[in-house]
């Protein structure tokens, strides 16, 4: 503990010195959601210690990628620090939007070994898995599930479920079990109101349905390539397992979601759950502290579980790393922020405030699992996360998947195999344009 205190003190002294030299107003850009509010609170400590002031530019999720990628592409100076989505790391690095942090980490003694390997791989490195760092893991996240624990514990509901399925009602152990539970609740009268199975992601405009459907694809064993880095997608993207998973997601959408649930993402899912419309919902772990604190559907009424396995464990990765924007005139101060943020005690406070630290000192703390009802699930999810393509052309790859999957799942156009075959055609065209095929 002593070295940590000494290091923290040293950083504080350096920051105090820096503040005398020049106090900057830093702008940090991120999505507008619960953890962003926690970061505002956390950053007050940085302001006090460094003398710099912090401004924040938070953009609602549906517009976040558009707004921020346009900002980066135009060389804008709005953001000094950007907590950008994991998939942007390739473009951020190759297009020169992000400052490479290796020299800074070496000089300041910041080691990537201090962070969970999955988060370093996903949020920081480009090319993937190489020791070239363009971000510090800022917010670990994955897609998980929550459910109405109070309904699951009611004797009448448990008995009805047992009579209908022959199983005991409880947290699902597989994807198929989860669908069965959702179908059980679909259209069921509870306390005089009609309830539905689950809120899943079906949004068309940004990334919603892709993030939802990969929650089924990964547990079935979906792979983007046969050999990593080779872009050989035939037989991987459209494998028999992938087809089955996509058909499963469509069945889930058609038989276990509320009426008119054809364009829903994070906010709509949260609304459906908080209004008592659904028994279960998928969403990012980042929202779980807020859900647990909700006076109507939180506390004893809610519980959480990791995305269930099918052929294997698998969860869709969320989360972001924090990067210094290459076009910023205040890079020195921005690096100071990263140095401050990387400290173990700051990371511990970050978790306490509702942010998901990826620092090993927080995650490996013996008390971590019991610190929140979803903490153990978070750790479990992070052990089997998979992310979407992180290529510089990720936006094209994502939009192609949004279109093909939405066409099949929601618009009922073609078969699952045809959707995945077309997806390979689209992705092949993108990689050919990129000169990678």
């Amino acid at each position, binding site marked *: 503990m002593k070295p940590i205190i000494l290091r923290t003190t040293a950083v504080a002294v350096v920051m105090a010195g820096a503040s005398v030299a020049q106090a900057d107003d830093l702008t940090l850009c991120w999505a507008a959601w619960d953890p962003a509010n926690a970061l505002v609170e956390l950053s007050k400590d940085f302001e006090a210690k460094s003398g710099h002031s912090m401004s924040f530019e938070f953009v609602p999720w549906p517009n976040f990628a558009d707004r921020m990628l346009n900002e980066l592409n135009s060389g804008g100076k709005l953001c000094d620090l950007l907590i950008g989505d994991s998939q942007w790391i390739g473009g951020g690095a190759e297009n020169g939007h992000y400052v490479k942090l290796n020299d800074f980490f070496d000089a300041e003694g910041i080691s990537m070994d201090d962070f969970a390997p999955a988060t370093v791989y996903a949020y920081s490195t480009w090319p993937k898995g190489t020791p070239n760092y363009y971000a510090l893991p800022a917010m670990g996240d994955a897609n998980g599930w929550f459910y109405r624990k109070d309904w699951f514990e009611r004797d009448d509901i448990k008995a009805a479920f047992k009579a209908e399925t022959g199983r005991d009602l409880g947290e699902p152990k597989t994807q198929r079990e989860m669908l069965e539970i959702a179908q059980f609740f679909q259209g069921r009268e509870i306390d005089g109101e009609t309830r539905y199975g689950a809120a899943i992601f079906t949004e*068309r405009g940004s990334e919603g349905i892709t993030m939802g459907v990969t929650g089924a694809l990964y547990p079935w064993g979906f792979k983007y390539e046969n050999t990593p880095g080779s872009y050989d997608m035939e037989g991987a993207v459209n494998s028999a397992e992938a087809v089955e998973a996509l058909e499963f997601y469509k069945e889930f959408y058609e038989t276990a979601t509320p009426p008119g649930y054809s*364009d829903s993402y994070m906010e709509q899912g949260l609304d459906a759950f908080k209004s008592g419309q659904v028994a279960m919902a998928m969403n990012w772990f980042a929202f779980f502290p807020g859900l647990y604190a909700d006076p109507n559907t939180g506390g004893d009424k809610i519980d959480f579980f990791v995305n269930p396995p099918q052929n294997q464990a698998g969860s869709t990765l969320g989360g972001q790393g924090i990067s210094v924007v290459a076009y910023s005139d205040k890079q020195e101060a921005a690096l100071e922020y990263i140095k401050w943020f990387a400290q173990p005690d700051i990371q511990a406070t970050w978790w306490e405030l509702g942010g998901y630290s990826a620092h090993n000192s927080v995650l490996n703390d013996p008390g971590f699992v019991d610190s929140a009802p979803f903490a153990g699930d978070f750790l479990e999810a992070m052990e089997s996360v998979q992310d979407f393509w992180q290529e510089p052309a990720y936006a094209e790859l994502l939009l192609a998947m949004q279109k093909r999957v939405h066409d099949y799942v929601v618009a009922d156009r073609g078969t699952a195999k045809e959707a995945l075959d077309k997806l390979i055609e689209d992705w092949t065209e993108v990689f050919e344009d990129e000169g990678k095929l």
Partner: protein
Amino acid sequence: MANSPADKLAQATPPGIANRVRGLSDRAIAWIFVGPSIFLLLAVNIFPLIWTINLSFTNFKANRNREVDYIGLRNYERILTDEDTWITMQATAHFLISTIVIQVLIGFTLAYLINKKFKGNDLWTTIIVLPMMLSPAVVGNFWTFLYQPQIGLFNYIVAFFSGVDPSSFSMIGEVALAPWAIVIVDTWMWTPFVMLICLAGLRSIPDSIYEAAECDRASKWRQFWTITIPMVLPFLMLAVLFRGIENFKMFDLVVQLTGGGPGSTTELTSINLKREAFEKWRTGYASAYAVILFVTVFGLASIYVKALNKVKER
């Protein structure tokens, strides 16, 4: 001694400037006046058009710092042979034709009724034109609530008259209904515009023509088909032209309502173009797409305007 404003201005002009202007020809003075407008037109309209045509032959991506290659007609070939392009074109054509037919029918009927003199005529006119004064983004958001299967008023009204369960159908979530959902909203919003143009046409018909027809004992039905319709037709055609051009580039309302979904069911050409240009950043490809759309609209509009002029000449 002349005292007109022009004379006063001439007297007030300093001799130096007056001498210089006096030496210029009429043509030169004309160029001085129209020059800035022509320059602006070239800078704002013509240059971007030429630049877009130039980009359409390249693989340029505005978000990538890499060498740009000229790839000939590859972008055009890709677009025109892409099955999805034609699905998008079909969706646009469906939207365009449906909205124009319905809006013209309802707009003309409303104009015909409003043109009759009755108490509260002005008040009703004001109420009818209210929707077109709203922002399309607001209208889109507003109607997504009305179309909500569980709480939406629209579904409850349909349920009231048809007896179906209101939550059994989703106007913006079902492939069969979503195209009609956007047609209904566009009709609600823009029929008043068609009505106003038709009303102008109806009010431009001199009463003396109807009086002469009455003297000839022409029936009301005959008056309608031989006087009203032919004389309003140029106005109707103008309304169709305006609505056609507007709806061909329809974007905001549909984005708010369906976002192009479900799947690609309501993905109109403008939405597709925006995705290619500003989400995928395929600038060269999007430029080719824009050129194709420009040629289509320009070609159709030119043919239509010629037809309109022929009708006017009759």
